[in-house]
């Protein structure tokens, strides 16, 4: 995978939820390039807009501003018919396997829906063969078809959820914390399975997690979000070797390490402020150990600074 074709591109994308206390800027002008064939890891504390961003990119939520391009085509104005086609190209795996399958449908019916919706297979026979093939490639058996979701374990259900996401033969798969609801032993198996499928099918992954260690292992590039904004983005090795944004530094150093000799001076202090009334200027300034006068007034532009995309006044724009 040495091509750097951008498959999905977001430009200043925004999502504002109106509420009684004021507008909630869940996603506040995020720029993002997803490169074909990569695993892009998105990290951030809960409530920072990770999931909302993924729903915007998938067009499951309408954005309040900005544009999204899939393979160079603007998808923000897509109508119903175009969206249906888009659903075949991008799919989503949910966090909680216990709630993401229709409990009143058998596994067969749950998995048959994508085939029926998109006419990907004709008749019961063809669909059954396709489903069995899918199940087997997920490490499940044909007999699981006639089960109901509640008869399966969490790990098995998550395999079914992954199978459903792959049924449409997508190019980009969004994984919204796909392992955080599973036991540790099951997590490893699902991750291995995901890695295997990615290589076989040449997929692009958009992997959301708050587990820094996990993101470090599986991603090619990572993005760090804070309060609706992207603060840093880059190659995984470089980011971990030398995180530039003070928030990234704090986030990474808050991960417990087996060798606690490392300094813990940059551990994050305080709480995440409310997105209803975010701090002025750089959203991170109230918690930032390196706050300067400008940080309270001006939002730092998210662009290349010293070779990496960072939104921080500590570094000059390239």
């Amino acid at each position, binding site marked *: 995978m040495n091509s750097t074709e951008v498959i999905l591109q977001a430009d200043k994308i925004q999502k504002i939820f109106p509420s009684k206390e004021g507008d909630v800027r869940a996603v506040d002008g995020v720029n993002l390039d997803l490169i074909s064939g990569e695993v892009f890891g998105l990290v951030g504390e809960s409530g920072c807009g990770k999931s909302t961003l993924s729903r915007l990119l*998938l067009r*499951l939520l309408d954005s309040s501003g900005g544009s999204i391009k899939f393979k160079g085509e603007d998808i923000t104005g897509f109508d119903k018919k175009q*969206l*249906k086609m888009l*659903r*075949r190209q991008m*799919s*989503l795996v*949910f*966090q*909680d396997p216990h*709630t*993401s*399958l*229709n*409990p*009143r*449908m058998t596994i067969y019916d749950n998995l048959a*829906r*994508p085939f029926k*919706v*998109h006419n990907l297979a004709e008749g019961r*026979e*063809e669909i*059954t*063969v396709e489903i*069995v*093939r899918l199940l*087997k490639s997920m490490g499940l058996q*044909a*007999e699981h*078809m*006639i089960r*109901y979701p509640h008869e399966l374990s969490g790990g098995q259900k998550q395999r079914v*959820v992954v199978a*459903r*996401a792959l*049924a*449409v033969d997508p190019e980009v798969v969004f994984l919204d914390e796909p392992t955080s609801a599973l036991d540790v032993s099951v997590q490893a198996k699902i991750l291995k399975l995901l890695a295997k499928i990615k290589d076989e099918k040449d997929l692009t992954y958009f992997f959301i997690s708050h587990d820094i260690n996990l993101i470090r292992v599986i991603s090619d590039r990572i993005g760090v979000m804070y309060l609706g904004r992207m603060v840093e983005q880059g190659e995984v090795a470089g980011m971990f070797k030398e995180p530039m944004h003070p928030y990234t530094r704090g986030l990474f150093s808050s991960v417990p390490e087996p060798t606690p000799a490392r300094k813990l001076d940059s551990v994050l202090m305080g709480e995440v402020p409310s997105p209803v009334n975010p701090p002025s200027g750089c959203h991170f300034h109230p918690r930032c150990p390196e706050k300067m006068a400008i940080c309270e007034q001006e939002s730092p532009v998210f662009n290349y600074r010293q070779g990496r995309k960072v939104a921080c006044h500590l570094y000059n724009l390239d």
Partner: protein
Amino acid sequence: MEDTLTYEEIKKDIDNLKQEKTSQLALVWSRFKRNKLALIGGIIVLIMVLIAIFAPVLAPHDPYRTAPLRRLEAPSFEHPLGTDAMGRDMLSRLIYGARVELSIGILIILFEGTIGITLGLLAGYFGGWVDSVIMRLVDILRSFPVIILAMAIAGVLGQGVYNVVIALGIVGWTTFARMVRSKILSIKESDYVEAARSIGESTPSIIIRYILPNAVSTAIIMVCIMMPTALIASATLSFLGLGVQPPIASWGSIISAGRDYLLQAPWISTTAGLFIMFTVLGFNFIGDGLRDAFDPTADRS
């Protein structure tokens, strides 16, 4: 790869498995069966329904034939539950009363269930002003005491069985609407509905395949839980003289007729009261049992 797999092979495997597998309904039934109280409730209700259906066969006497000389007789071999103030056989009247009582109950449930479930669905699914209008109406109706409001409506409409049904239906649908609405709201926000959208399902398909099947159990449970309320309310209206009119026997009107003779002939009001009590108890047990059987993981609070 599993390219060698043919449909026939898979089908054979699956057919073998299906033999051993129990359907979801069978599963609900097996859980229901294990619940002793639910089973007792089921038997009580079944008996009441059979009594209502076979009333002409079961009743030892004509429930309307008066015998002025044999009024207020104590239970005897000829009249197992005694006679009332007009000498009519109490057992026969109670058996015929089951017919009246249960059919009124069913009519009320049908009436309020249809309105309540439809409006609850609309409010829950569409939200916005549709939701606001329906739910404010619910709030207004619920701010009155149920029986007072039903009495007022029945008073305006006049006496009679159908007016009781209408009066109680107008008041009672609000409970259905509330329950169905909140169920729809939680289903609408669920991951599996978002998943359905993410694979490209259309709105009608989501409503039919994802939302309705998951709301059905709530509706069934609601019917069983609302039945006792409907029975008691209709009996109350009959007791107050607004519902079933003499000489037709209903349990409510029998209690009412017996209240003047509580000391001389206590069996009149008490037996009718017991019939009401057991039927209500039966439906309550079934309702609780069904709730547990449909969703064993649900909170019992």
